[in-house]
């Protein structure tokens, strides 16, 4: 098996995940009503065990003294990468929140502007305004006019 440095912590993380999964399955999913039938808990337990075995194998392969020297294919995240990943995730969460509260027509240009100016640090406000307005209008026409699909109108405005 080809080893990567990341395997040294990925294996144990997956082991923990499998253990947590099994714990949750035992705690929250009831067993079978008839002893001879596989109930709703059987398959999730099987999956937990499979992940446990796979993670155990990954961990063993990474820590055994005979393990081949791990490569360094997975680079460490740079501060810029961490910023962009968290900002994009935050933007998507914010989009969901604003869609619910302000509706599509207001939320979309805000998100487009934040992506362009906040994440990409662009300062061409004419281009940003044009894209924000244009994209909102095109999406609205396509979804509402053509497909008759209901878009969120916003709880605060209603």
């Amino acid at each position, binding site marked *: 098996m080809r080893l990567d440095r990341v395997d040294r912590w990925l294996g144990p993380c997956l082991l923990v995940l499998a253990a947590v999964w099994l714990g949750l399955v035992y705690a929250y999913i009831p067993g079978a009503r008839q002893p001879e039938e596989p109930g709703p808990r059987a398959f999730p337990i099987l999956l937990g065990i499979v992940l446990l075995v796979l993670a155990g194998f990954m961990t063993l392969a990474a820590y055994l003294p005979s393990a081949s020297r791990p490569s360094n294919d997975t680079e460490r995240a740079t501060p810029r990468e961490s910023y962009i990943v968290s900002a994009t995730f935050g933007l998507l969460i914010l989009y969901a929140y604003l869609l619910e509260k302000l509706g599509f027509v207001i939320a979309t240009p805000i998100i*487009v502007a934040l992506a362009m100016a906040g994440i990409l640090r662009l300062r061409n406000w004419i281009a940003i305004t044009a894209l924000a307005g244009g994209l909102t209008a095109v999406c609205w026409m396509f979804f509402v006019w*053509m497909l008759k699909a209901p878009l969120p109108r916003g709880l605060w405005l209603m």
Partner: protein
Amino acid sequence: MGLIFGSIPGLTFSMALALMVPFTFGMQTTPALGLLLGVYVGGMTGGSVSAILLGIPGTPSAAATVFDGYPMAQRGHAGVALGAAVIASTFGGLFSLLVMMLLLEQVAAIAIKFGPAEIFALVLFGLSTICGMAERSMLRGLVAGSLGLMLMIIGLDEIDGIARLTFGTVQMQQGVNLLVAMIGLFAVPQIITTFLNFGRVEPLKMPADVRARLPALGQLRQRLWLMVRCSSIGTGIGAIPGTGGPIAAFLAYDHARRFDREPQNYGKGELSGVVAPESANNAVTGGTMIPLLSLGIPGDPATAVILGGLLIHGIYPGPMLFRTHLELIYALYISIVLAYVVILIVQLWGIRIFVKVLSVPPHVLAVCIIVLCGLGSYAIRNSIFDVYLMAVMGLLGYVLQRVRIPVAPIVLGLVLGETLEKQYRTALIMTEGDYSIFYTSGVALFFFGLTAITIGLQIFSSRRRRPA
């Protein structure tokens, strides 16, 4: 859309398909299927455009086209290469459609006799294709498949109606929607990667004057038998779940070079080096439809999205499809033919407009995709919860991509997991817990054997690839 997403390096047509599915909600089933198939076929064909013009394959399936397509472009024969690519693609696509029409009903007629044990074994075989999707490490592929199956568990249990790991929330009872997961897993990591590359990667420079030209009839006639052979390779490879376009294209390229009288010309701008991989990778589209429609098993991420789209429209691919929705099968045939006709017209006569579309900066496309992700996820069930879920799945997809766990097996786990569990439990309920049902059926044993062979072959090939 398929042509555009397929031709832009980095944007996958699986992502285009996932983003397109919500657009089909307002449509009747037939046009919806037509749209999805058009994107699929267009995506497979579009990869050749950037492969020939820029030397960068738009899709992995077009990687083999670069070897001779790009040298042809450098020698000033880009038009002929583009023309030959689209003719070969259309030929391969229509050839595989013909094979599909001949085989589909026969496979379905056999599959209709399957009981729960046989279907369980068949789906398990479908899941074993995870090994083929795992790219570098089978272990990572299996981990990803397990994660997909775990995500599928969340929600109401179909047999007992018991809420599993929903923690008392109503929204979670519907489970992790397949399409929401796919939008997050495929699109969000791509958005992040595009943002990361912003300002670091030189924008793609398209040649100033591009137009596709039809190759001479004689050139095509000389390569007709080659196209038939490569299309057969593509259809056969496509019908094996977990293989896909790249393998077919490389095998066809290798086949063409090996049986050519002048193999030394390959890699220097040989027209057969464009025709062979393009006919093969497009023939995959018909091949993948055979297990998808007759058995309900998607062979690659793109067909998994198409399956998700069909399920949302209440269409359950499998042997019963021929009894319940025969008209849809005919609509599918017509859609594929129409898609290739449109692609032929667009690529032969509209290539210059198309090249201009390709010049749109990737970061602008990424911002547009953010909005489409949000709207697409919402439109699936008119649920804001799904938009949050998409964001979480997107973050998960990016993290997994960073630690080199492939996301395609997660999708396969999500798609096939429900049937796998249902058939397993149904089989054991029928026999009151007697496991002999799985090993007394010849068909089930046959599929268990195929599963073992698939995994064994993958272990064998990964050991051969391992560096000394």
